[in-house]
């Protein structure tokens, strides 16, 4: 009971400080609970989506002729295959598709749009309740991507219209397509009824196929993939496996949950630093009392228990509150995931993990208190009674004596000197400012980088005004040739570079044959930045994407054996580049392309100055139908749009949290500092030092610490921050992201925001110095 009374009194004495530390621990627990909940829920929901929709374990896309009997025979003889189905898709050009009330077709869309019917045995397209969609004639189910991007609703219209027909549909459902959900996947399936499908194919003849397999054992996916690709079965198009579907689906929410958890760890570090400061200043204040308690024979363990009980109880209560609050806030974090992936029934572990995560925060807080409170061992009764303070300040170099400061204003000097003298204490504020700066600058840098057109270089593409993509269609080779001929004769075009991606066979490290998609052409125009080495120049050189290279475990200068025209050809790896497209696994060579296995054609071109890119895009869209023409920004926006939106949200949250934490901690720190310094302030006041002068001393301290924090944080953001972001993105194929820095935002607006908010907070927080009076100090 005595301990309870002491705790109650202590709380009332330091209400604000206790509440702030409580809030930090609570927020940290809240975020760690929500972040871990998001991860568990993401994994659980993905599993559920994948199991209900029966996602194929291996999919080979194919454009062109298809011999189903050959596939059936091969499947029947392959022991790994459990089930096989071939999905026929009618490919629709964006210029023929009108969504909602829009009068404009989707001609600038970079998505490969196709119309399908519901599958019979697996790879089901699900609705927003994760039920297999049944569609009636006249109805259509639209990918959830368009629901979000175009803000579409059930009942909206979709029409397919070309010169010879106009077919209208009403949206009856939105599709969760486990294969093609994410915006980073450039293929989208629309679902129609069998009747409508038959009708569409009378007008729209372009077809593509998904040759899909379910295996007996998912672990065999790699072996199966190799076996299929070397079987000579249809393969004009990329192949994707189950694991990649999972990675692509979980990417956006995975990044968000990672950021949320990092944020919670940051808050926890700040909470612990605050706790340390709070505990140490309490010990400092109570130093003499602790001496008295020791002197009258109370053991240090008993004294420590009083402090430990308070902070452990606070940590536990704050963590519990944070966990409970997370139950209400989880929806905010999971809304994007719920839309794309859906919600699975909650499993037991889903309740336990977030609770456990909050519990860990509580444990860390407790252990930190135990460590901080070891300081009690160092206090001797005599020392405490005699000096009344722990004498923790550092000895100052003679040069930092006031008498040696000839020019500096006295109050600025005194403020700055105090920082050096009590650096161990001030380090808290400096570290917090450092974290807050990093925390605001890194996301801003990354957002600017991903929004910049320079981001194209992480997509394995050189910068050009316009990009033309020509996917599989009838007479594709002729079309490509006539397109190139037309472009070369176009006086508006400054320069252009046609490239062909085709499939080759390579001999892997184990000596087995494996397919590799190689882009061929002239790489001297629209050059890429290479991580290592350079672009291929001669016919025996090949450049690999970062992920391909990592998987093959090669370095520049190493050899790679290709089979070209039936003969072995030894290639030298001349460069490694970054590419986040096509699963990150691509290659480039200056070889003639493989005519038998062309996957797609592209042309990059720059226009002469003064030529309107948008008009040129329109002109080429009409002339080169069904080729897809996009300008650089449009291409980036459509590919990275969703990710940019998510990162924008994260950036706004980060900047707000950074500012809020700076303000809170500055206010808390200064309040505690002034409480501890009250006798010194009173002495200064009695000697005639004005309130204004004392304020200058304290604001100097805040601003100097803030400046150091901003400088350290900026350096950290531009170096380690860049590496952290690169590390995260290396999973997608970009291992060396260089920040595009918006100097005005990063070096002017953000620091200015921090400086203004910290200065205002400091000015408000130090109003307490008015109360310090010498008569009270003397009375003590």
């Amino acid at each position, binding site marked *: 009971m005595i301990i309870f009374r002491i705790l109650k009194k202590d709380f009332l004495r330091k209400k604000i400080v206790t509440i702030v530390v409580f809030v930090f621990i609570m927020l940290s627990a809240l975020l760690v609970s929500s972040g871990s909940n998001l991860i568990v829920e993401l994994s659980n929901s993905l599993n559920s989506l994948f199991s209900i929709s029966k996602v194929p374990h291996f999919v080979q896309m194919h454009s062109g002729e298809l011999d189903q009997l050959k596939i059936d025979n091969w499947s029947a003889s392959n022991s790994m295959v459990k089930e096989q189905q071939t999905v026929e898709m009618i490919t629709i050009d964006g210029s023929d598709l009108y969504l909602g009330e829009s009068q404009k077709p989707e001609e600038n869309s970079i998505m490969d749009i196709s119309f399908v019917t519901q599958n019979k045995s697996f790879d089901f397209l699900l609705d927003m309740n994760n039920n297999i969609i049944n569609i009636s004639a006249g109805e259509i189910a639209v990918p959830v991507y368009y629901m979000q991007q175009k803000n579409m609703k059930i009942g909206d219209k979709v029409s397919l219209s070309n010169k010879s027909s106009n077919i209208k549909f009403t949206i009856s459902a939105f599709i969760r397509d486990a294969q093609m959900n994410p915006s980073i996947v450039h293929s989208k399936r629309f679902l129609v009824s069998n009747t409508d499908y038959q009708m569409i194919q009378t007008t729209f003849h372009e077809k593509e196929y998904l040759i899909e397999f379910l295996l007996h054992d998912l672990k065999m996916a790699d072996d199966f993939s190799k076996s299929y690709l070397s079987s000579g079965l249809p393969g004009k198009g990329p192949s994707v496996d189950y694991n990649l579907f999972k990675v692509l689906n979980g990417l956006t929410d995975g990044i968000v949950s990672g950021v949320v958890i990092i944020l919670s760890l940051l808050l926890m570090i700040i909470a612990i630093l605050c706790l340390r400061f709070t505990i140490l200043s309490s010990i400092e204040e109570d130093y003499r009392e602790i001496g008295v308690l020791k002197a009258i024979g109370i053991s240090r363990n008993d004294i420590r228990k009083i402090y430990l009980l308070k902070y452990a109880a606070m940590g536990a209560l704050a963590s519990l509150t944070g966990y409970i609050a997370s139950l209400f806030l989880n929806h905010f974090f999971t809304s994007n995931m719920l839309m794309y992936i859906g919600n699975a029934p909650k499993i037991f572990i889903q309740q336990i993990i977030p609770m456990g995560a909050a519990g860990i925060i509580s444990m860390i807080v407790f252990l930190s208190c135990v460590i901080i409170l070891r300081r009690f061992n160092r206090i001797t009764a005599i020392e405490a009674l005699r000096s009344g303070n722990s004498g923790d300040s550092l000895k100052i170099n003679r040069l930092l004596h006031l008498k040696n400061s000839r020019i500096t204003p*006295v109050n600025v000097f005194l403020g700055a000197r105090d920082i050096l003298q009590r650096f161990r204490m001030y380090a808290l504020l400096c570290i917090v400012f450092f974290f807050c700066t990093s925390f605001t600058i890194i996301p801003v840098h990354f957002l600017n980088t991903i929004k910049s057109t320079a981001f194209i270089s992480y997509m394995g593409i050189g910068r050009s005004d316009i990009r033309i993509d020509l996917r599989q269609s009838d007479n594709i080779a002729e079309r490509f040739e006539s397109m190139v001929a037309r472009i070369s004769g176009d006086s508006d075009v400054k320069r252009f570079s046609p490239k062909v991606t085709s499939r080759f066979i390579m001999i892997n490290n184990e000596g087995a044959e494996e397919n590799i998609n190689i882009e061929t052409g002239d790489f001297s125009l629209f050059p890429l930045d290479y991580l290592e080495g350079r672009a291929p120049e001669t016919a025996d050189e090949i450049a690999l994407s970062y992920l391909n290279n990592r998987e093959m475990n090669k370095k520049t200068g190493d050899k790679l054996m290709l089979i070209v025209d039936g003969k072995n050809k030894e290639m030298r790896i001349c460069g490694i580049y970054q590419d986040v497209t096509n699963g990150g696994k691509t290659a480039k060579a200056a070889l003639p392309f493989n005519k038998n296995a062309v996957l797609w054609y592209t042309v990059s071109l720059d226009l002469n100055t003064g030529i309107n890119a948008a008009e040129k895009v329109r002109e080429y869209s009409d002339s080169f139908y069904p080729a897809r023409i996009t300008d650089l920004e449009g291409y980036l926006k459509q590919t990275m749009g969703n990710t940019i939106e998510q990162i924008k949200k994260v950036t706004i949250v980060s900047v707000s949290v950074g500012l809020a934490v700076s303000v809170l901690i500055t206010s808390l720190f200064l309040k505690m500092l002034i409480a501890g310094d009250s006798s010194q302030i009173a002495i200064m006041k009695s000697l005639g030092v004005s309130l204004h002068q004392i304020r200058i001393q304290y604001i100097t301290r805040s601003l100097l610490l803030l400046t150091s924090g901003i400088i350290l944080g900026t350096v950290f953001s531009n170096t380690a921050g860049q590496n952290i972001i690169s590390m995260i993105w290396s999973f997608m194929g970009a291992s060396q992201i260089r920040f595009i820095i918006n100097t005005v935002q990063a070096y002017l607006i953000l620091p200015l925001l921090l400086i203004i908010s910290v200065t205002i907070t400091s000015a408000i927080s130090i109003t307490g110095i008015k109360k310090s009076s010498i008569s009270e100090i003397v009375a003590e």
Partner: protein
Amino acid sequence: MEILLEAKNLNKKYVIGKQNELQILKDINIQIGRGEFVSIMGPSGSGKSTLLYNISGMDRMTSGKVLFNGRELSTLTEKELSGLRLNKMGFIFQHSHLLKNLSIFDNIIMTGYMAKSTSRKLINKKARELMEKTGIAGLADNDITQASGGQLQRAGICRALINNPDIIFGDEPTGALNTKSAGEIMELLEEINKSGTSILLVTHDARVASKTERVLFMLDGRIVADKKLGKCSGESGDIKSREEKLTQWLLEMGL
């Protein structure tokens, strides 16, 4: 004698809780002349220190007037009051109250630098002279934890003198010192007073008070007696007789 400091009908009340009031000073009227050396005595709780803090402008009085060099303190702003304390007044406390993060020398020069009345070079020179005079010249770069109570009190006196104040206020300046140190400090104060600086100090010690030329006696918030002892010659016989006279008077006053 020219009046330096004057209190007229000075009252000070503290509000305790919601309704209770405690009146510490009751209708105080005093005048301190330029160059005068005055002490205030009285039992504990009689209001001595409160009077000192109120007439020096450190605390705000409840009613009445305090005039310093003819300027009424209650009409001054916080900044003007600070300026007055910085430039025209010096303070010596029972516990030296030096700033703990500054060296002894820096403690002495800090208010000098802030007053900006002369160059930093001259302030340093003056501080060194004062330290020489008070016998602490060797402690300039020491931390305040590296000096004895008497040495710190001397440093406090140096600090009080750095801006050539018109008056020095002392709140039990010898209260925490041993007899020898207390004697030395009083000698210093006498010397300062001889140079024309007024001194007003609160003390319990009759020996200290006997060195001053006038003793005010306080009881229950009022000045109940004002005894003039005249200038002390400094001769041992004179000091002894002043002490005896004062002790006798204090006994009569009931202390």
